[in-house]
C-alpha cells in the first residue's frame, strides 16, 4: 500500500508526462493536419491563371467577328466601340505601329516619341497571356467571370485586330496563341531589374547624406498652381481643430502679410452631410452608374437630366426607366450600349427611376 506522499508523487509524475505529450514536437506538429485535401474539381474551379508560357490556358477559340458582337454588347460601354475610349478607363488600343510589330518595341514609349496623348494598354502589354487572363478573370466590369472561354478568345481576337496584329478574318485559339505572341508590339519592351525585386538588392539612385552647406539648386522648381488651391475642398476641414497648426482656409486666397497679420483660420468641423439627392446619389455611386452618366453631363451615356428631358411627359415613365436600367439597351442616345444591370435590386432600380422621372434634381 502506498503512502499518501507516494500517491501524490506518482500523480505529479503522471501529470507531467501527460503535459509533455501535449506539446507539439517540431518534427510532427499537432496542427500539421489542419485543413483538408482539395478535390480535383475544386482546383479546376479556382486555378484559372494563365502564364506567359500559356500554362493554364483552356482549349477553345473565338473569331474576330464573334468577339465584335461580345464587345459591343458587354465591353464597349466602358471602353468604346474601338477600345479607344478614355471616358471610363484608359484606352486599350492606339499608339502602336506596323514597325512596332516587327521590332517588338513600341517606339511611342520613348520620351517624346508618342503618337497618342497617353499610354494605352496595347503599347505596354508584352505578353498575350496577360490580356487573356485578365479578361477571363475580371471582365466584364460589372459581371466578372461571366464570359465563356470561347468568348474570351473572341474578345481578345477583336482587340488584336483593332491593333492590326491579326487580320479581320482571324480566329484566335489555344493552338495559335504562341504564334500571335510573336507579333505583340511591345513583346521586347519589358526589362527585369533584380535589385528592385529582391529585398536585399541595392537601389538604382545614389544620394549622399551631406549635412552642411550642401549644394542646392537656388530655384523653387514647382509650386502648387493657384487653381489647385481649393481643388481638394477646404483644407481647413481636413485638419484637427486643436494643436500647434490649423488647416488653411482654402476657400479664401492665401493671406497677405506676415504671420499673425490676419486672424487665425476659423476652425470648421466638416459636416457629415447627406449627398445631394439623398440615397439615390449613393445608389448611383455604389452601382457605378456615375462612371458612365453625369447628373448634368454626358460621360459615356447621357446625363441623368438629359434622360429626364428626353422622356418628359411620357406615360409610365418610371416603369420604362426601370426596364431600361435592368435590361440595358442602345439606340436611344447613340450606338454605345448600356449593359444590363441584373445585380440591381428592384426597389433600388425603382428609386433611381423615380428620381430621374422627377427631372434628376
Amino acid at each position: 500500500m502506498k503512502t499518501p506522499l507516494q500517491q501524490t508523487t506518482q500523480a505529479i509524475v503522471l501529470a507531467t508526462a501527460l503535459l509533455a505529450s501535449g506539446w507539439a514536437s517540431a518534427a510532427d506538429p499537432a496542427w500539421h493536419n489542419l485543413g483538408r485535401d482539395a478535390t480535383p474539381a475544386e482546383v479546376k474551379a479556382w486555378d484559372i491563371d494563365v502564364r506567359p508560357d500559356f500554362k493554364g490556358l483552356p482549349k477553345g477559340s473565338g473569331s474576330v467577328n464573334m468577339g465584335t458582337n461580345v464587345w459591343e454588347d458587354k465591353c464597349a460601354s466602358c471602353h468604346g466601340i474601338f477600345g479607344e475610349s478614355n471616358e471610363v478607363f484608359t484606352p486599350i488600343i492606339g499608339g502602336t505601329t506596323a514597325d512596332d510589330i516587327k521590332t517588338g518595341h513600341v517606339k511611342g514609349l520613348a520620351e517624346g516619341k508618342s503618337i497618342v496623348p497617353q499610354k494605352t494598354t496595347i503599347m505596354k502589354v508584352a505578353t498575350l497571356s496577360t490580356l487573356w487572363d485578365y479578361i477571363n478573370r475580371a471582365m466584364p466590369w460589372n459581371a466578372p467571370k461571366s464570359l465563356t472561354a470561347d468568348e474570351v478568345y473572341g474578345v481578345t481576337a477583336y482587340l488584336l485586330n483593332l491593333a492590326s496584329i491579326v487580320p479581320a478574318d482571324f480566329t484566335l485559339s489555344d493552338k495559335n496563341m504562341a504564334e500571335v505572341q510573336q507579333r505583340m508590339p511591345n513583346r521586347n519592351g519589358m526589362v527585369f531589374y533584380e535589385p528592385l525585386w529582391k529585398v536585399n538588392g541595392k537601389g538604382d539612385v545614389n544620394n549622399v547624406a551631406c549635412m552642411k552647406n550642401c549644394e542646392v539648386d537656388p530655384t523653387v522648381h514647382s509650386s502648387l498652381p493657384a487653381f489647385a488651391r481649393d481643388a481638394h475642398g477646404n483644407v481647413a476641414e481636413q485638419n484637427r481643430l486643436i494643436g500647434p497648426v490649423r488647416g488653411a482656409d482654402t476657400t479664401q486666397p492665401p493671406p497677405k502679410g506676415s504671420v499673425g497679420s490676419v486672424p487665425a483660420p476659423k476652425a470648421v468641423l466638416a459636416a457629415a452631410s447627406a449627398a445631394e439627392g439623398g440615397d439615390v446619389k449613393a445608389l448611383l455611386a455604389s452601382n457605378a452608374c456615375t462612371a458612365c452618366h453625369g447628373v448634368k453631363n454626358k460621360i459615356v451615356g447621357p446625363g441623368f437630366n438629359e434622360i429626364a428631358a428626353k422622356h418628359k411627359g411620357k406615360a409610365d415613365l418610371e416603369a420604362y426607366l426601370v426596364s431600361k436600367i435592368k435590361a440595358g439597351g442602345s439606340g436611344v442616345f447613340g450606338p454605345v450600349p448600356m449593359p444590363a444591370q441584373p445585380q440591381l435590386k428592384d426597389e433600388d432600380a425603382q428609386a433611381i427611376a423615380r428620381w430621374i422621372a422627377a427631372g434628376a434634381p
Partner: protein
Amino acid sequence: MSKDLSDVIGRVLPAPENFLSPDKLETARKARRRFMGNALAMGAGVAATASAGRALAADGEDAILKLPEHTTGLGQSVATDGYGKPSKWEANLQRRQSPGLTRVNQASVSFTPLQGLFGIITPSGLHFERHHQGWWDIDPSKHRLMVNGLVKRERVFTMDDLMRLPSVSRIHFIECGANGATEWGNVAVPTVQYTHGMVSCSEFTGVLLSTLLEMCGVDKKAAKFVLAEGADGSSMTRTIDFERAMDDCIVAWAMNGEMLRPENGYPLRLVVPGIQGVSWVKYLRRIEVGDQKWATKDEAVHYIDQMPDGSHRQYSGIQECKSVITTPSAGQTLLDKGYYNVTGLAWSGRGSVKRVDVSVDGGRNWRTARLEGPVLPKAFARFNIDWVWDGKPAILQSRAIDSTGYVQPKINQLRAVRGTRSVYHQNAVQSWLVSENGELSNVQVY
C-alpha cells in the same frame, strides 16, 4: 529656457538661402550673421509675443471660470457605443479621395490623413484603401484558402483552420506603388494626405505563409515563385518571390487587434513586408506555387517603371527608403512664430530606418532628428525635431537613411535615372514651403 532650445534657436536661418539670387544670397548671409548674434535675445522676444497673443480677461478664462455642462451634468452611460468611434471633434480627419484621380469609385483609392496622426500605428478606420473592382464584406464561414501547384498535397483551409494555427503579430507598413505619383511631374496636390497618404502602418496577425507552404509539402527545389490570388471580382493576382514567401510573409486575418476591416481584405489578406501594397492581395483565396512569373495584368500593364528609352522595368516591387514631414505640412497654417515640434514618418522596404535628417533651409543644412521607439524592420519610424520659427520663409525637408545605408534621394536624382514619365515608386525628399503668412505649401526644390 533650456540650453538645448537656445542651441536650436541659434540654428534658425533668416531666409531660405537656396532659392535667392547670388546677390540676395550674400545679403541673407550677412543678415544671418547678425541674426546669430541676436538669437538668444530674439528667443525671449518670441516667447513674449506668444503669451501676449492670448489676451486674458481680468479674472481669467471662461473655460476655467464658467463651469461647463460636462462638469455639472450627467454624462453618457457605459457602452453606449458597443464598438466605439472617435470623438465628434475629430471628424475632420477622414480617408478622402483625390477628386478626378479615378473615374470609377470601385477602382479607386482613398488617402490616409497623415497630417493628423501620431506614433506609428494607423487607426484601422483611417487605413488607406485601394480597390480594383469594389470591396466586399465576405462571410468568413464561407471563405476558403486553397494552396495548389508545386506542393505534395493541394489543400483547402477554412478560417477556423487558419486561426487555429500558430500565429505571429508584426508591425509593418504597407504602401501603394503609386504613392507619391503626383510628384513625378510638377506639384499638383495641396496636402500630405494626397502626396503621401497611400501608406499606412499596422500590426498584422496571422499565420506565416511559410508555415502553410511547409504543411502542404512545398517542392523547395522546383518552387521559384508563388501566385497570390484574391476572391473579389478582380481576383487580383500577383507574383511573389519564393524566397520572400518563405521569409516574412503573413496570411493575416487581423489588423491592430481586431479582424481586418472589409475595405482592407476581411477576412484574409496577404502581408508582404517591404513590397508594394498591390502584392498584399486582399480577400486572399489561393496561393499557387510555380516555377515562373505570371505577368498578370497588375504586374505587366501597371506597377511597371517607364524608363526614358521606352523600356519598362517589370517586378520592381520594393518600396525603397522614404520619409515625409507630416506636421507641419502643406495646407497647414502656423498660428504664430516660435517653437514647433517638427514630426514625420520614415520607412524602408529593405529594413529598418537608421536615421532621419531634417532641413529648414531647403536642403542646404541638415540636423539629425530624434527617432522614437520602437524602430522596427519594414515599419514606420516616427521622428521629431525642435524648430523655432522666426516668421521668415523657410523650406522644410526630411531625408531618411535605412539599415542598408541607402539615402532617400532628391526628385532630380530619381528623374536622372528613371526619366519624368514614371508613375510608380517615387520616394524622393519632399519639400514644404513656409510662407511669411504662416501657410505651408507643397513645392519642389532640389
